Every structure is written in structure tokens, then in C-alpha cells.
């Protein structure tokens, strides 16, 4: 079971909890591939998605996960234009809560926003991405995929390639994987690596070839195009030349390595089209696994019983 009321990140969650989530996700994935993709498990349970930032795949993934489990899911696309964002956030959530919503899936542009909401509401919260802080369900689905394809997480060398400074996906991956003893490398231009990152237990590289050599997994991060301003990058073309993942660089990985990307991809920037098409790419399967992991979480956090009951 999830011990805390809210799932805010992978930093403060135990490997026991992660193990259980990943275990429950296995039968959930099975449901997705069935002809009839619906179980009555969460019938009569009410949840809402609160997305203060645009999202297509994470939002759909949660919605679909809720539907397959028969939970009622309300979607609120919240305007970010309001100046008094804090008031809007809490007021919006409380309004839904008093209408009976038991769980919020929340995405917000400010780090810590779900922590703030969590302190002010009784409903449970799943963080679907907060600022540059964490994106725990992406971290979990990445770990599920790695475990599924490569086995024991502790034996893996995982290279996270790209804008780690601004990436909540990178942070959740790092927290989750280092808990299992995986060797995590990060690689990016120095302008996109935050200070003291070594203290998170990762190896920091600026040379992509060194960082890829012998890795079991490469997880490529999306590069936000606005990083060209503010002195972080000279151009996307130069980024692609020195840090983009192309076929030649794939040769540095272990032969049975897998290639991951949280999407959406900028082809020709951080990843070349042929890399996505490579047989070792598991990018599409990550998306399927995302639904399974989110079903597991919804089940564990809305079902009220131990997650193992699904078996």
C-alpha cells in the first residue's frame, strides 16, 4: 500500500511501495490487452484530473486508466491566467472535494504545488508532474519498462541524456533507480546540468559518447525549444550534433540495450527518427506501461485495500 496520503514523488517513497506498484501493474497491463478492457474494481469511486499545464499523453493515460477500472473521472482543464493562482488552486480542489472527489491527479507548472494542495485537502493526490521537481508516474513507468525488459534494476547502467536541469522526469528516474542501486549517468551540455547534481548519487558527463558507453538503458529527454534563449544553448542544430542520439551513438550501448523517451519527441533534435524506429526502442511500450502503472496506483490509492488483492 501507499503509506502517505499523497503520491508526490519517488524521493520519499520506499522500495517496498515501488515494488508493490510495479507488481500490481503486471495484471493491470494484462487488462489493457484484453478484448474487453474494463473491470468493475473502482466502480462508484470519484476522481478528477487537474491539469494546470498542457498535457496530452499523461492526461489521457490517467483518464484511460480510470475508465478501465470503472472509476468516474472528471477532467478539469484549469486556466493558468489567474494571478491569484494559489487561491484558484485550493478553491478549485476544495470545490470538487466537497462534491465527493476522493483523488486528484494534478499537473502544475510550479514545483511543490501538489505538496501545497495536499496539505490543504483531505482527498488523495497523485502528482502528474510539478514544475521541475518530480513526475513520479513517469519514473514508475520507466522503471516498470526497464524491469520488464532488462530484469533487476540494481544491475543496470542507465544513461539519462538531455536537459536534466529542467526535467522532472530525470529527477524521478534518478530517485527511483538509485534506490535500487542502479548506476545512473546523466549527460548534457554543462548549461543544462544543475549544480551539485553528483550529490543525488549520479555520474555527471558532458561527453555523450563516454556517457553512453556500455549502458543498458538510454533514456532521452525532450529538449524544450525555448532553452535556446537565456544563454543555455546556441542552437538546436548544434545540440543535435553533440548531444542528439543517432544511429552511430547507439553502437556505444550494450548490444541488448533499450532506448527510451518520455515523449513527445523532437525528431532531429534530441533523437533521430531512425533511433525511434530501431528494434531496441521501447518508446511505444512505455506508453502502454504508463496506463498499467497508473491503473495500479489508482487501484491502490482509491481501492483502499492492499494492492496485492488484484491477483
Amino acid at each position, binding site marked *: 500500500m501507499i503509506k502517505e496520503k499523497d503520491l508526490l514523488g519517488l*524521493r520519499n517513497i520506499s522500495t517496498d511501495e515501488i515494488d508493490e506498484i510495479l507488481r500490481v501493474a503486471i495484471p493491470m497491463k494484462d487488462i489493457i490487452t484484453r478484448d474487453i478492457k474494463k473491470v468493475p474494481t473502482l466502480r462508484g469511486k470519484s476522481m478528477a484530473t487537474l491539469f494546470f499545464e498542457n498535457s496530452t499523453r499523461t492526461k489521457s493515460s490517467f483518464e484511460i486508466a480510470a475508465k478501465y477500472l470503472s472509476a468516474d473521472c472528471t477532467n478539469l482543464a484549469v486556466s493558468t491566467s489567474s494571478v*491569484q*493562482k*494559489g*487561491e484558484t*488552486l*485550493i478553491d478549485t480542489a476544495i470545490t470538487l472535494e466537497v462534491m465527493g472527489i476522493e483523488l486528484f491527479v494534478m499537473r*502544475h*507548472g*510550479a*514545483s*511543490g*504545488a501538489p*505538496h*501545497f494542495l495536499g496539505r490543504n485537502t483531505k482527498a488523495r493526490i497523485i502528482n502528474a508532474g*510539478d*514544475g*521541475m*521537481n*518530480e513526475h513520479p508516474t513517469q519514473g514508475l513507468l520507466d522503471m516498470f519498462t526497464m524491469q520488464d525488459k532488462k530484469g533487476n534494476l540494481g544491475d543496470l547502467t542507465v544513461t539519462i541524456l538531455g536537459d536534466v536541469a*529542467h526535467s*522532472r522526469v530525470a*529527477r524521478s528516474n534518478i530517485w527511483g533507480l538509485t534506490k535500487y542501486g542502479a548506476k545512473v549517468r546523466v549527460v548534457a551540455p554543462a548549461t543544462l546540468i*544543475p*549544480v*551539485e*547534481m553528483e*550529490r*543525488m548519487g549520479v555520474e555527471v558527463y558532458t561527453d555523450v559518447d563516454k556517457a553512453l558507453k556500455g549502458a543498458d538503458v538510454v533514456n532521452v529527454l525532450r529538449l524544450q525549444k525555448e532553452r535556446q534563449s*537565456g544563454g543555455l544553448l546556441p542552437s538546436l542544430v548544434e545540440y543535435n550534433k553533440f548531444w542528439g542520439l543517432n544511429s552511430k551513438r547507439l553502437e556505444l550501448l550494450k548490444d541488448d540495450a533499450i532506448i527510451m523517451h518520455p515523449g513527445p519527441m523532437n525528431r532531429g533534435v534530441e533523437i533521430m527518427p531512425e533511433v525511434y524506429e530501431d528494434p531496441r526502442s521501447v518508446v511505444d511500450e512505455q506508453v502502454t506501461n504508463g496506463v498499467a502503472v497508473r491503473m495500479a496506483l489508482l487501484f491502490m490509492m482509491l481501492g483502499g485495500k492492499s494492492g496485492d488483492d488484484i491477483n
Partner: protein
Amino acid sequence: MILIKDGHVIDPANSIDDIMDILIIGEKINKIEKDIAIKEEYEIIDAKNLMVFPGLIDMHVHLREPGFEHKETIKTGLEAAAKGGFTTVACMPNTKPAIDDRTIVEALDRKARGAKVNLKVIGAATKNIDSDQLTEMGDMKEAGIVAISNDGKPVKNANITRRVLEYAKKFDLILIEHCEDESLANNGFIHEGYYSTILGLKGIPREAEDLIVARDIALAKMTDGKVHIAHISSKNSVDLVREAKKQGINITAEVTPQHLILTDQIVESFDTSTKINPPFRSEEDRKALVTGLIDGTIDMIATDHAPHARWEKEVEYAYAPFGVVGLETAVSLIYTKLVKTGIMSFGNLVEKMANNPGRIFKLGGVLKVGSDADITLFDPNKKWVVNPNKFYSMGRNTPFKDWNLDGEVIHTIVKGDFALKDGKVI
């Protein structure tokens, strides 16, 4: 006539550290002696087991008037000061409108007239804080300002800072500088370090402070003007000030209780009561601040009391305004965390919170026969728990909520009159 009997009187400026009596007649101290004979007309304060020292002086408070009366008012701010043992506070000019001409200085004086605690005003160095135009600082000085500052920001650029320092010399005004290079700070809001990295909150590198401290040291030397570094927070900046003092440059510095006690780790909670500017820095910086305070590099402690309304602070971390309240917790925090722990003496506390600000800004801060009877009485054995709902300040934004503190101010006497008596604001 008040006779403070049998208190432990401490005033390092006059080398007093003994059980003594203090007789107050009218607004002035009449006698500081052992065993002053009791007369019928005296109001006797039994100060047995109390520490008695010159009234505390805080050179850095935001009382929010005019313009932000929903955060704090002169009245509530001065009540909070009395509760915290301060007999004099100096308010910063980043109000709306800014305190940048004589009329506003006089208006604040009128507002403070009924209050017990002394209000001193700091005038803006340039019009509307952020402009190139010098304020009429001579005129404001005549109206009573005790320093100039563009607090919240440093003076805009090196050239204007130079001119401010040159011009202010004639009026013997010290420029109090909030040192932060805006471009390097780059809209950050916590210390750039491990915690900004793991929490994904935008960082302000300590070098943003160091750059302006270095700039101002160079300009103080160039102009022979006087610069006072507000709320110093970075180790490098402490080193820069130490070195400048060795060279005889006119530079002084203050540090806040919160920067002496807390580090950026506290931001982990995403509690907006930990959002201040300059931000809580690393343990290495914190230790350097303590060292700098002890070795005299840092002259004084100031609170940077910065109240905000609840609804302004109860938002996502990134959107919250900077600042914490400090008047009502300062002396107990310093006593609990620095004096009781043996890091500094009670005499050091008095130097840093009364003697030195008094000497540097010419505001008294000593116990002397004939001087204003501004006196704080403090019970070191009293224990209390910080409950923001009990603050006299309108601000509730403190990172020390629920902390157990030792020592509490019992009486605050200003010009021979009680501003705080038996822990209650008069």
C-alpha cells in the same frame, strides 16, 4: 520614576556586567548603581533573575506603510517591536509610494506619534527606488531619516551608486544595500545548491550577492562613502567584508537571526514561510555567518521583519512573496541558538543587537546616566513556544512556528515609559 532593582545589567559598551539597579527619572537614566535606596515615589521593578540591557535596535524592518496596510501597519509593527524587546526600529522605504521625500517621512513620524517604540525612517536612495534620480536626501535627513536604502534591490548600477555615495557624504548618511545582482539572480528564489537542484526550484547563486558586495566595496573605497551590507548571507561576501574592513574601508554589515540559524534544507517542505531574499543558504554559508558575527566582520543582527498577508503567502512556492516576520522571535532565537549553546556570550548579543547599531547609526543603544531610558528586561529562564497566532504583528509568516525557545522579553521601556509590561504590549 522607575527603579529597576537587582537586575543583571549588561552593557559591553560601558563595560557593565553586574547585578545593579537602574533609576529612571522622566525619560532619562538617572543612576546606574548598586543598591539604590528605595523611595516611596519609585515604581519598583523586581528584576531579580532578569537580564537588563540597552533597548534593542533593529535597523531593518518593513512596516509596510504607506501602501501595504493589509500586511502590517506602523501601529502593529511597533507593537511587535515592543514585544520583541526593541526600543528603536528603522523602517525600509520600499513602500507604495516609496519613502523618497520629506512629506512621506513626516507623515510616518505623525503616524508613529502615539506609539511607544521609537520609529526611525530610512529614506530611498533614488526616487521610486528603481530610478537614476537621487532623492532629496538632505531634506529627508532634516526630517529625521537615519540612513538611505533601496532595499529589496541594490542601487541600480555602479555609476548611480557612486553618485549616491558621493552625495550622501555631506549628510553623513550610510547607504544600506540589498546586495543582489539581478541578472545573475535570474528570477531565482531559493539558494542555488543541492536543494534547488533536487526540488527543481530556481536558484539564486551566492555570487549574485558577492558581485554587488564587491562592487560596493570598490565604490566605498573610491568615494570614501559609507556602505552597510543588509542581510548578508553568503560565505564569500563575509570574506569580502572582512578583507575590506582590514583595508580600512567604511563598510559595515548585518545578518538576520534566520540566516544564522536555518539553511536551504528547510525549503524541502515547500512551505512559503521559508521563502526569503536573500535565500537560506548552505550550511557552509551559515557557519561563515556565525564566524563573521563572532569575529566582528558582521557588526549587527537585524531582523528584516517582512510581514505578508496570509493569502499572499498561502500559494504555490514560486508565486509567494519573499519575506518572514522576525521582531517577536529575534532575541529569543539568538539567545536559544547562539548564547545558550555557548557560541557567543550574552554580552555579544547586546553588542550586536543594541550597542553596535546604536553606535553606527547614532541611535544610542547604551545604558548611560543622562541618556534616554531605553531598556529591555529579559527572563532567560522562561520557556515558550512560537505561536504565530499570538503575534502582535499582522504577519504570520515565520519559519519558526512551534519552535521551543528559551528566554523571553518581560518589559520593554522606551524613554522611561513601558512599551511592554509583564509580557503585554501597553
